[in-house]
């Protein structure tokens, strides 16, 4: 697993865990928030891959 995937996977676990906990505490509607924001994990991952690719091109 590359550093990018590890970063995305870690952020995914932390975010889902936090939102779920806050939802259980009654602070927010976890399902509502996760339903609206889960595609951002794909956006984040794609952005990181894009940046990493650009950096590799520059370093060559």
């Amino acid at each position: 697993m590359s550093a990018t995937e590890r970063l995305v996977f870690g952020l995914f676990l932390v975010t889902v865990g936090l939102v779920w906990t806050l939802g259980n505490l009654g602070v927010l509607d976890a399902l509502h928030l996760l339903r609206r924001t889960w595609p951002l994990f794909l956006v984040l991952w794609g952005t990181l891959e894009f940046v990493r690719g650009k950096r590799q091109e520059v370093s060559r």
Partner: protein
Amino acid sequence: VRAARAGLFLLIMGFGGVVETAWQVREHVPGGTRFGWRMFRGRYDGPSHPFEQAPHTVPLPAGTAVRVENEFGAVRVAAGQAAEARVVLRTVVYEPSAEKARAFASHVRLDTRTENGVLHIGTNRREVERGDTGFETHLEIQLPAGTALQLRNEHGETSVADVGSLDLEAGFEAVDVQRVQGDARLQVRHADTSIGDVSGALQLTVRHGDLAAARVKGATRLDLEHGRAELEDTASLHASTRHATVRAVRVGGGLEVQGEHTEVDATGVQGPATVRTSFQNVALTDVTGDAILENQNGGVKLLRVGGRVEATTRHDDVELDTIGGPVKVTVQNGGVAARGLAQGGEIQASHDAIDVDGWSGALSVAGENTSVHLESGQPLSGRLEVRTSHDDLKLDLPAGAPLEISARAEHGDVRVELPGLSTTTSTSDFVAGRVGSGGPAVSLQATNGTIVVSTTGATR
């Protein structure tokens, strides 16, 4: 790296799928929970507030029929005073706010009108219902005893007592009907049904629910799918069933079951019994008439049948005990155990054992890859013919019983050990002779098996 990347992608997409599905269920299944209530298994669930209206009385001339329609909520119909219908409406509003619930309930009212000699009782649900508020209308109705009643209730308990005739369609909650003076027709879905004391005929259609019916004086016709029927003290019973169980005790007329994947257990049938089913067992006890059974892949058990028996099955066994008429039993890949056959009959089986203990009259037994054991404590009173293959044939008869015997084994031995037997031919594979001055013919034939004839009890 590729596998890790694919795994992470699937994880995120799978998570998104679960979240989307949970959202769709919460938001779009009727009721959901967004308004503080939800629809669960056909009924409202959540915080609610009941509101009961004052009793409403409607004149009901003698002979006027009543039709009740309700969609959500219990309907109870009981006997009341003569010449009037008394109705109490109780509205239950599913709404967290008591003020909003009260305001909503104030718009719900009883709707009664008489058309073409029929009193219609219902509510104005269609006028007031809206998506954000769930509500039930519970109807407590009192009618003069013996009133003809039509009742439609979709989502609520239904109970009816002391009516003249009944035409009922209901679903999703229990149905209870007691004391119908005339005919009753019930159509019930997704609910259990209990019925007692019907003076006329009973016609039942039940889907996905259990049924208990007792004391029906008229003919009962049952159409049952995915349920279990317990019937007691009925007149004739005709059942059409799929994926069901039918248990009947004391059937006053004939019993007929046309079933698929249906277990049948009936006791005390006054008349003939005809059962066709598959993949489940059939047991009939104390049948005064004939018993005709066709089963596929299921066992058959018959105890104390007064008339003749025709039983067919495969891949399971047939058991007969105390049969008054002649039997005709055909089993594929299964055995037969019979005792007390008063008029003999024909028995065919394959790939299992045939065991007959006590019979009168002529008896014909044919087995294929089947061991056969016949035992009689009484002298033979009719012709006995037995054939089998690839297994042994054993016959036990009382000492000194007169008979004429012919026993032949192909690729096997014959031993006839009856006292007083005088043989005309006796070789290792064929014996012919008689006991006494001769009697009923006994013809035994085994292929690739041994025949042993001995005195009853001698080999025990």
